[in-house]
């Protein structure tokens, strides 16, 4: 854990704190139908035109039910639209590579994935998606799903701040304004900055480059007809070495093992067919091209995370410099952080906004430090063998970013529901990999996905206020609004849904052939891979513990449903909560009022998140990363 890491971490937190207020103030304007921004002269006519086109009356507000229905309808249409493009991409323009259509289940998974702001990618972008698919089918959702999330958060905040109201705003207006005034302008600027760092932005076909240094890989030998050539060999097994008397040879009390042919019942060696491998020289490389910077800007800012290239932010084009790395991380948190300020402004209690922000920051720092510590400490087995002790765990990490920036990126991307990665989470140490997994299981409420982070955190705020609010001797009140049976029911329902989807699907996969067939690793690490996949899908994160082969009909379908549940079955109870809160009277604060700012509240909120939200996952985590950690530590250590 080097000084440079500490300095960067400090810089990151300071920069984030600095942009929170301006972003919050700007959000106040964007999320107010009559708000004023610098872009009004250009965008106002476009906004008006869009409403006319859609037939939206901008001054007509929705109640909770109408707002939710509008959101669901919008997402459904978007989903079908994307599905259609992906299935028909071979017939559509902007496909210089001539890529074919996606399979039904992959198209379903991908459409759902982008509509739910998850951006789980069961495909390899470079070899699957045409430019049109990337720019229209996928990038459209990068904007729209982000805007929809922010709209829901705004509706909930209005529900909290309005006194005895009925309506929560107009979904279409929120959607359009967020896209036009917030996401588009920032993305244009951000994309230009990224291009300045060396990120590509073009419509060229992929380039084939000659390698200056050729290398060889092993491939399966094929015969003239293209069939794999196999050979028959003896199966070898480990068995104890025996001395002349037939007794096992012992060294320090441990039996010495040796390779020996496996024998069948008749004492004959067991034979098996294996593929014959041959060396093949690689002297060219296909280099990806395309409109990358525009995609990456919204992928980060909108916490979408779906990479243009399969390597995501680890790809040199998709994350060229340390500065681009820093800015990408900052942009993941930018809007979510600003929304806490927006909350404080709207409820006229800025300290509350900062208290929520502080609770998020404490959880963020805790996660970052644990992950960084675990990765910097390295692999205990390497240490037992006396190799690579000083470097920490560099497996699966870009040398350009090193341990700290990989750990920070992993924490940021899973705190928010982004899912972009600049290193392989699968290759982290068990504890290092536990952090991203745990972050998503918390519900991605540490800054969180744009909008989704705030509304997820507010569910915990409501629960914290309810449980602890009783302790001050009043019917619990959140900012003057009574928290009663209905609110508790809806808040708990959203938690229950999260838990049900993650644990239910993972448990199903763990005992199914389709589930275990996709595993690259066995034992606790394999469990971690399945758990991570369903956690990431349910949490709408989209990052992957890369070991899992998920592009199968079963995984594509189950993960698709996990994403739908994690997004919409969360939003429905939360909007019901908003619809109920908005109708309530606001009791004026007094000395007996429950305080929702200050250190005590921050501690309380963190405690609630950990005790009510996270402890539920402890048993399964114990079977996965935790036991893996202890198995790594034992001597001799065990890897999976």
């Amino acid at each position: 854990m080097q000084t440079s890491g500490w300095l960067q971490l400090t810089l990151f937190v300071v920069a984030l704190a600095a942009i929170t207020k301006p972003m919050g103030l700007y959000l106040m304007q964007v999320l107010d139908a009559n708000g004023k921004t610098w872009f009004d002269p250009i965008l106002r006519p476009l906004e008006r035109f869009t409403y006319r086109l859609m037939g939206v009356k901008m001054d007509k507000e929705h109640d909770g039910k109408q707002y939710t229905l509008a959101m669901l309808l919008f997402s459904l249409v978007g989903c079908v639209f994307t599905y259609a493009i992906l299935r028909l991409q071979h017939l559509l323009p902007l496909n210089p590579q001539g890529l074919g259509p996606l399979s039904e289940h992959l198209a379903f998974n991908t459409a759902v994935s982008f509509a739910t702001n998850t951006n789980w990618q069961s495909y390899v972008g470079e070899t699957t998606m045409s430019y049109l698919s990337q720019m229209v089918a996928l990038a459209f959702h990068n904007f729209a799903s982000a805007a929809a999330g922010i709209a829901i958060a705004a509706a909930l905040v209005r529900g909290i701040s309005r006194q005895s109201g009925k309506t929560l705003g107009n979904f279409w207006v929120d959607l359009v304004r967020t896209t036009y005034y917030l996401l588009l302008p920032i993305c244009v600027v951000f994309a230009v900055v990224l291009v300045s760092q060396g990120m590509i932005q073009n419509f060229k076909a992929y380039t084939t480059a000659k390698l200056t240094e050729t290398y060889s890989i092993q491939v399966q030998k094929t015969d003239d007809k293209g069939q794999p050539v196999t050979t028959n060999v003896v199966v070898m097994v480990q068995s104890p070495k025996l001395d002349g008397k037939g007794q096992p040879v012992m060294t320090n009390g441990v039996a010495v093992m040796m390779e020996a042919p496996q024998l069948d019942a008749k004492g004959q060696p067991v034979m098996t067919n294996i593929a014959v491998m041959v060396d093949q020289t690689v002297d060219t490389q296909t280099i990806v091209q395309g409109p990358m910077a525009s995609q990456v800007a919204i992928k980060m800012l909108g916490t979408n995370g779906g990479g243009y290239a399969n390597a995501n932010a680890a790809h040199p084009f998709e994350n060229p410099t340390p500065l681009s790395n820093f800015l990408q991380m900052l942009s993941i948190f930018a809007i979510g952080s600003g929304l806490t300020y927006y909350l404080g402004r709207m409820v006229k209690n800025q300290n509350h906004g900062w208290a929520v922000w502080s609770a998020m920051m404490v959880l963020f720092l805790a996660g970052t430090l644990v992950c960084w510590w675990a990765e910097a400490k390295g692999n205990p087995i390497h240490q037992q063998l006396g190799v690579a002790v000083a470097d920490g765990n560099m497996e699966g990490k870009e040398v350009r970013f090193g341990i700290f920036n990989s750990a920070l990126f992993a924490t940021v991307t899973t705190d928010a529901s982004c899912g972009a990665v600049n290193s392989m989470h699968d290759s982290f140490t068990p504890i290092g990999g536990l952090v991203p997994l745990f972050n998503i299981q918390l519900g991605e409420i540490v800054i969180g996905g744009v909008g989704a982070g705030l509304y997820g955190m507010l569910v915990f705020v409501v629960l914290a206020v309810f449980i602890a609010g009783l302790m001050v001797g009043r019917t619990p009140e959140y900012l003057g609004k009574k928290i009663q049976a209905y609110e508790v029911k809806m808040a708990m329902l959203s938690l229950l849904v999260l838990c049900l989807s993650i644990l239910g699907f993972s448990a199903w996969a763990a005992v199914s052939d389709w589930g275990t067939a996709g595993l690259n690793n066995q034992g606790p690490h394999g469990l971690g891979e399945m758990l991570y996949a369903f956690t990431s899908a349910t949490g709408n994160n989209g990052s992957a513990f890369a070991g899992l082969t998920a592009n199968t009909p079963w995984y594509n379908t189950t993960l698709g449903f996990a994403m739908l549940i994690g997004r919409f079955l969360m939003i429905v109870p939360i909007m019901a909560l908003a619809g109920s809160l908005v109708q309530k009277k606001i009791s004026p604060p007094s000395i007996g009022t429950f305080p929702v700012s200050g250190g005590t509240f921050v501690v309380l909120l963190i405690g609630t998140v950990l005790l009510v939200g996270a402890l539920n996952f402890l048993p399964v985590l114990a079977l996965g990363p935790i036991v893996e950690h202890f198995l790594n530590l034992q001597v001799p250590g065990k890897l999976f």
Partner: protein
Amino acid sequence: MTQKSPSLFDWNIVGPAIGDSFTKLNPRLMIKNPVMFVTMVGAALTTVGIFTGAASERGFILQLAIWLWFTVLFANFAEAVAEGRGKAQANALRKARKDTMARRLKNGREEKVPANELQKGDTVVCEANDVIPADGDVIEGIASVDEAAITGESAPVIRESGGDRSAVTGGTRVLSDRIVIRVTMDKGHGFLDRMISLVEGATRQKTPNEIALTILLAALTLIFLLVCITLKPFGIYSAAVFSVPALIALLVCLIPTTIGGLLSAIGIAGMDRVLQRNVLAMSGRAVEAAGDVDVLLLDKTGTITLGNRMATAFLPAPNVKPERLADAAQLASLADETPEGRSIVVLAKEKFQLRAREVAQPNAKFVPFTAQTRMSGVDFPARDGQPARAIRKGAAEAIRLYVDQLGGQFPQAMTQGVDEISRSGGTPLVVAEGREVLGVVHLKDVVKGGIKERFAHLRKMGIRTVMITGDNPLTAAAIAAEAGVDDFMAQATPEQKLQRIREEQAAGHLVAMTGDGTNDAPALAQADVGVAMNTGTQAAREAGNMVDLDSNPTKLIDIVEIGKQMLITRGSLTTFSIANDVAKYFAIIPAMLMATFPAIAPLNIMSLHSPMSAILSAVIFNALIIIALIPLALRGVKYTPIGALATLQRNLLVYGLGGVIIPFIGIKVIDVIITALNLV
């Protein structure tokens, strides 16, 4: 009913409660409490496991089953003890509800009928030593009534027709005189009947916060159920065998059994504490609402002030000796039986040693107060060489008119004096003899001792007090300042009272008020917490949601505290219960994984002896903590008005942090004990 609360573990209550703990195992009753229902199902499944499980584990499973059943029984016991205290009181009340004969008036004739045949609207006669047969209003006569049966107070109270003291309660006894009562309640719906059913908890309904909390606990139970059920397939994948009893043990430890088991006991005990303060709350909802109250409307008279204006000073006119003024004022007041009149007599005696004379002077003629003259006084005819005297006292305007008519002058100095007294909130009473103005008596509302401190106490609790009075704004302001109320409402009519309550409510406040008169009824009904005085009218008692049997308006403060205590106790035990889970995870999870993954041993941070002892210790702790917390649930967590933040910090520290730490210690201690006893 007794003022003294029975000790927490009175054998008369505990005995039957043990029996009730078993009868409450009826699944139809248990299902109302989802947490304990799941525990009971778990206990039943574990019991089956004794016979189906491996022989080597039978002893362990048997012990597990026993402790799981104890967990359920302990929770039932807590509820039964809380109910038992009420039942004892209900039995005492039942004794008062003897079936009596009533003397019904029909067409002017009296007839004897059994009390239970009386109907609403009947009129009955009661004389000395008769037990009043039913609830009603006195429509004729005045009597002293012994209400000890319901209030526990042996001093008789006066009940009379008209006015605000007309309500009588069935089961109480007339001590003197004769009254005619109109029955206002059918048999079985009377005050005493309602009281019995309330005390017994027969009609107990969950309060809003209790419902919300039950939902939270049920949802947590569902989540943990999911956690434990999915653990089985995860175990299969990991080649770790999780036995059903172990999973049940984990489940029961994780679900919030502590608060789930004590929740209803807390509510019942809260109602019981209200009753011990001699307040009859019509529902738990009302008591809970009292904890939320942040505006308190109080009638000035009888609550803030002693209720009557008292003479506090004599202010003689220029050239008049104070003694003369005092003497005249006393003479004028001798026949005045109002408290003001009596206070003048007393003050004259205190200041100038003027003894109250025997006023039966022949020919002395008292002039009573009338609304027309707005004066009272006394006339002495000329006698024994003394000239005739005519002394008058009254409002300044009335005396000015009187003196003017007689050709006298109202002195300028007196006008000033009158104004000064008015400005200070007092009532000036001018005394004149003939056409000469003698001076002014300063009548003042006397604020009750200690009331200021009580209002300060309320302010600390976050409650604003509003004084309601019919006085003019000047007088009201002066008294408000002296009593230390936050706000006042002068010249208030019943309509304005109602309006004020609606306004406060519209601004988001919860309003409590006390009242006794019939014209208070609408306001009592509108208020979130309406406390009617037992001495009040039947209409007032019907409109409010609480009746104070002691008729002490400041009792509201006690009720508010109990309401808050109930909520604090629930919140604290919920926090404690949830915080407990941390230690239980650390006890049970390593124990369950140990067989398959010995490497996980370092996670057993409590160094519990063996997997079985670890699981059993956690389950035993989980059961015993319920018993240990019963006294707290019945007594309630103490409430001190130190502000919400300080209260929160204290309770978070005690029940949150304490809830994390205590089970670590408790489980370790139990593990040491059961290991020493060779139980596992």
